């Protein structure tokens, strides 16, 4: 038995049996296909056994068998809620290994889509998290539908840009595949302005709500030490008081040219993570504005368009590239043997590392908090299982 669980038992639980409850993989709050085998005493969780792997699709093997031209569209399917960042991690790794230059305009476009993706992804997170706490037949559904409405607007932008709404294939080694169409920048500005105004409404609706505070404040506290030991990243580690953001620490794709702040909260609870993400919403909007304002002219790719899938070859070598996705550090390790396909490829999924903090913080909470905490971790199972 988990020593933490033993502690809870010894701390004065009077008697009677334990209940083993299987939560997932088919559960409304499983956020995909998470399976948690909970040991309950009354309503208190005393043991968690997390089971993952239901969505495993051999992504790393796929990466070895698909060429540098083909795989970016497949990379979308690791973190399908933030497809743009997954693609970006892969092409950045390939560019790093192959020492491929990326034109300035392409870098800016990458920043724009990555930040729009962060907005879209956080919209989905806020909606589903409130759905976890508020129920499909309650206020949670209301927030969920509002957020989905905003996410749809952002997806409309992607559709106008790429032609797809969920899995894009926008990035390619050496740049991006498409330039922005006419009047897209204007539409983008309108959309993010609208989202920005709506954010105030959500904050009004949630933060002044005593029930929301009661459900989130002091719940699922990840201490600074735990966050660093387990290796969580993204909003989770920033909610625990560590200023850790790849965009700031190791700027890629011209992030050093933008003015944004990295939100840090010290409480480490669900509310802190919520605050971090709400500030990130606004910072992303500001970055998109700056990028649209300063969008340089020029080509969007340093390579000509490919005529066959095996045309892009990357020089021999290996390297690790990481980007700051909506859920944290998304990394891709690539070994190239000089051919059109990587010799070996390894994903570092943000959700996978973030999820590993769950057994540490779920012990001793109530069943209702399990879903609230899981929602605040914001896992995407395509990325956990890969």
């Amino acid at each position: 038995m988990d020593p933490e669980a033993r502690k809870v038992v010894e701390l004065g639980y009077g008697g009677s049996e334990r209940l083993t409850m299987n939560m997932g993989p088919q559960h409304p709050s499983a956020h995909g296909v998470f399976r948690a085998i909970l040991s309950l005493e009354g309503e208190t969780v005393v043991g968690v056994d997390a089971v993952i792997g239901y969505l495993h699709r051999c992504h790393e093997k796929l990466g070895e068998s698909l060429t540098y031209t083909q795989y970016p569209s497949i990379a979308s399917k690791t973190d399908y809620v933030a497809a743009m960042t997954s693609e970006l991690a892969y092409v950045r790794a390939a560019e790093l290994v192959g020492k491929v230059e990326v034109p300035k305009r392409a870098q800016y476009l990458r920043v724009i889509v990555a930040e729009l993706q962060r907005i879209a992804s956080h919209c989905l997170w806020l909606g589903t998290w409130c759905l976890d706490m508020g129920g499909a037949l309650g206020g949670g559904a209301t927030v969920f539908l509002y957020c989905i409405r905003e996410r749809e607007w952002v997806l409309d932008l992607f559709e106008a840009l790429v032609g797809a709404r969920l899995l894009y294939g926008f990035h390619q080694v050496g740049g991006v595949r498409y330039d922005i169409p006419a009047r897209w920048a204007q539409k983008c500005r309108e959309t993010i302005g609208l989202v920005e105004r709506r954010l105030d409404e959500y904050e009004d609706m949630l933060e002044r709500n005593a029930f929301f505070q009661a459900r989130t404040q002091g719940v699922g506290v990840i201490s600074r030490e735990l966050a660093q030991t387990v290796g969580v990243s993204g909003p989770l580690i920033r909610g625990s008081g560590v200023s850790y953001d790849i965009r700031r620490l190791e700027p890629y794709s011209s992030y050093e040219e933008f003015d944004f702040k990295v939100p840090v909260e010290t409480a480490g609870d669900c509310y802190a993570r919520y605050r971090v993400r709400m500030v990130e919403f606004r910072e992303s909007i500001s970055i998109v504005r700056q990028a649209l304002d300063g969008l340089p002219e020029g080509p969007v790719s340093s390579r000509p368009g490919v005529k066959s899938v095996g045309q892009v070859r990357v020089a021999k070598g290996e390297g690790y590239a990481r980007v700051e996705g909506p859920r944290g550090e998304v990394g891709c390790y690539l070994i190239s043997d000089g051919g059109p396909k990587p010799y070996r490829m390894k994903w570092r999924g943000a959700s996978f590392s973030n999820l590993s903090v769950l057994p540490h913080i779920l012990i001793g909470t109530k069943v209702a908090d399990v879903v609230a905490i899981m929602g605040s971790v914001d896992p995407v199972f395509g990325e956990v299982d890969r």
Partner: protein
Amino acid sequence: MPALPPLALETIRAFIVGFIVLNVIIGMVTYVTLLERKFAARMQSRIGPYRVGPHGLLQPIADALKLMMKEDVVPRQADRSVYNLAPIVFLVPCMLIFATLPFAPGLGVADLNIGVLFFLAVSAMEIVGLFMGGWGSNNKYALISAMRAVNQIISYDLPFIFVALIPVVLAGSLRLSDIAAAQAGLPYVFWFPLGTLAFFAYIVATLAAENRVPFDILEAESELIAGFRVEYSGMKFALIQLGEYAHMIGTSFLGALLFLGAWSGPWADTSPWWGALWFLLKAMFVFLLVTWIRWSFVRIRVDQILAISWKLLLPASLLLLMATAVVVVLRGPGG
């Protein structure tokens, strides 16, 4: 033909009226679900049911037909008799609460002299059905939900009763029609601050008694899938749903009667039908108030729910009741 004895006549009358009321309630339940769905849809910037009939007006009938035609699945390990009985045991008290409700002066099944007491006692009985459903399903989610149900109903029935007693003290009668008549001048909700506070407390207790968000920990579909009714399907599910909404309408009517002056309103003295209409509108107002709260809050945790009840609502309702009693004693009944 010999005249029937008065008792038999009375029985036949009650039977007919009861039959009519039951069917009206069932019809109302189906359409109240539509009202709630439309209302919630508007809140969420959706349209709601729209395809079946004009503006989705036939949607409830389609839903009922669908539920009737669904396969009735009984889990293999379920306690069959308990499992099968539970929806009935749940539904009967939910329907019985309408027995004492006067829908207009002289329009009701039975105007008991202990109407409020009967209502409260019967509505508290629904927990038996809930627990049977949760226990008999042989499902862990259902069992946890049943445990929560017992916790919650016990905690919230007390403040519910205390709050419902405030109009009783003010009117000096347990008969529902007397309470309604006592508010002919000014509904109790406008008796600031006692009546107003009591009305708010009633709404909170109602939310808990009806298991609605933020107190819907029984159903809690993000934690317990659907709680005690997770294993029910088809007509049994429909019966539970029917009972839940009937209970909700019943408490809405009671709230409208106890605090909003029941059938008082313009032209109410000309015809009982006007009174019935006003009463219906007021009950729907209470219902929509509860619905409004439901669709804008997140659910709270079971320990927090119990804390709210025992630490806040129960003392507050007791204090309100005592304050009302003091006021009534000082000013004389009905004052």
